[in-house]
């Protein structure tokens, strides 16, 4: 496979009176042709900065980027005709109709006018095409934004939160649209917070936190890399669960207590759990490996899982995954 999008060591620093903030700190990303690639990260992690930098809206302080094999921003104008993008929330001039908005973009970009009707049909806005954009709901504006990105029949489609504001039916339509586009040979980069959707749609993902890549690869690989360490533990009825939890924690286990069981997050060697508890004559009724979903992997990798009694601030996250597992 060939890489449609390559980013290596990307850096962006913002300077203000409050000091220097590294929005991107050596970020790397590779997207192969024909894939639907998920781009994940908590708020303030550098997702939008990455996309804006890639699209020439922000100047990087260092690093290398290439789209369709051409270095950007130097050769961005040569490949811009093959890249459709929406960045952050959809933004259009409210007093124009959807049809006018797209027709003006098509004219500015040298795209055939017939494409306007085709993409309006594709995103389900055909019957509202002559209404002013300011009368649109957020979901309809989102559809219009996707339509504008599809207008030039791009080889690479970059969508920042495309499902934002869509109703459940719209989310499902967007999902099937993404899949159809990928099947037609288009490469899609999808930034979203709806992790269930990403897991369903995407072939591969990149997770960013604190301006750095913390995980990348196929969805299955990323899930597998994190799921082996967690186990669900249930004790015999009537046994004091609190004593068992304290015992394991004293031995370095990361334990989360649930209603009638507990989980050990860093159980590299589950036999260690049975041994420690059995020594105190505490016996298990269940010990099962946990299969992680993308949400739990995301929360674990980015360190953004809610902690009882604490209010996490937007910039509080980790930049690298914990290495190894307890008990190994």
């Amino acid at each position, binding site marked *: 496979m060939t890489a449609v999008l390559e980013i290596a060591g990307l850096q962006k620093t913002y300077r203000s009176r409050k000091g220097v903030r590294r929005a991107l700190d050596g970020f790397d990303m590779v997207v192969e042709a024909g894939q639907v690639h998920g781009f994940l990260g908590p708020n303030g992690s550098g997702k939008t900065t990455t996309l804006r930098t890639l699209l020439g809206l922000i100047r990087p302080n260092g690093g290398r980027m290439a789209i369709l094999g051409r270095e950007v921003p130097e050769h961005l104008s040569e490949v811009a005709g093959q890249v459709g993008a929406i960045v952050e929330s*959809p*933004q259009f001039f409210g007093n124009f109709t959807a049809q006018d908005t797209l027709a003006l973009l098509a004219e500015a970009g040298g795209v055939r006018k017939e494409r306007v009707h085709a993409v309006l049909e594709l995103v389900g806005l055909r019957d509202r095409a002559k209404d002013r954009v300011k009368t649109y709901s957020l979901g309809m504006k989102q559809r219009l934004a996707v339509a504008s990105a599809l207008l030039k029949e791009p080889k690479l489609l970059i969508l920042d939160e495309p499902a934002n504001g869509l109703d459940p039916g719209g989310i499902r339509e967007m999902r099937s649209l993404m899949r159809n586009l990928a099947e037609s040979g288009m490469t899609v980069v999808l930034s979203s917070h709806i992790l269930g959707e990403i897991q369903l749609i995407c072939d591969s993902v990149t997770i960013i936190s604190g301006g750095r890549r913390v995980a990348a690869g196929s969805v299955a690989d990323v899930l597998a890399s994190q799921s082996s360490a967690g186990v669900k533990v249930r004790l015999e009825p009537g046994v004091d669960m609190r004593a068992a939890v304290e015992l394991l924690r004293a031995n370095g286990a990361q334990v989360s207590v649930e209603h009638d069981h507990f989980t050990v997050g860093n159980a590299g060697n589950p036999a260690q759990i049975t041994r420690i508890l059995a020594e105190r004559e505490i016996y298990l009724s269940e010990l099962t490996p946990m299969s992680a979903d993308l949400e739990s992997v995301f929360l674990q990798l980015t360190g953004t899982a809610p902690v009882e009694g604490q209010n996490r601030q937007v910039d509080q996250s980790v930049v690298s995954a914990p290495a190894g597992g307890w008990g190994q």
Partner: protein
Amino acid sequence: MSLYSAETKRLTKRRFTRLFLLGMTLILLAIAAGMFFVNQKAGPEQIASAKAQSQADYQRAVEQYNQDKTQCQADQGTPNAGRWPTNCEGLYEPTQDDFQYQWNMPPTFDFRENFPNMVTTLAALLALVAFIVGASFVGAEWSSGGMMNLLLWRPQRLKVLGTKLAALLVFFTALTVVFSAVWTGLFVGIAELRGSTDSMTSGAWQSIGLMELRGLALVLVGAAVGFGLASLGRHTAMALGVTIGAVIVFQFGLGTVLSLAKVKFAEAYLIPVWMVAWMDKEIKIEDYNSCDFSSAGGCQPDSLTLTWPMAGGILAGVFVLIVGLAMWTMRSRDIT
């Protein structure tokens, strides 16, 4: 070229542009209608009526003079004599020349004399509209996110902003040429019906043409400055705010301070004076607190003449500064 035609369509499709042009057209029509109804053609009937009026005024003045003279002579030797000049010698006897019929003529539209003011009116109104429409054209694009959208399609910042500005300036050039032609035709008609074009020579027409050209330059600078300021601030309000600030600081504030400080030729610091200098080719400012003595003329105030090349230099400087700054920031700033 496709970007240029798309930007021209974007400009002309905007409701804001259409509303402002409609409003300006209505104001101009109201001015033309006002001039039509206020003025009258000076024919033999009007001249005869004016002459009759001035003759009647003269007769009344003579009667008054005779009454006053009689009363004055009667009052001599009485305490009332003090109310009159000594021996009634200083009483002024009116003459026919004191009551010229031209003063009683109804207002008439002399094209050569009155139309230059109308050219200035048109240029000032068009420049104001060009400033606001120019500011809104790019300001609304920045604040609505349209500019970012466009840059995703055409990642050539200077070309995008430059093409937008070119579309705006070409549009206002065409608009000013059409409006100037219609405005001139309208007032030729008004002069024919309610005045005269008799004094128009080819030189006078050339002068009117050059004045309209200077008006066009004023309109284009107005458009470019509004556009540039709104692009610098990435919002229409930036241009309008700077303008209101400039009017308050430079016109009211600075004008008051300079006049309190008795600064010589304080008017030279005010924007309208330079606009008049540009449109009327020159303006003479006099300092009445000074005396430039000559044996022939006595005490004359010092004067400063502002000419159209000086005003043109300032207009060009403002144009280059604002547009240059807007282009530089477009090239160098992150678009977030």
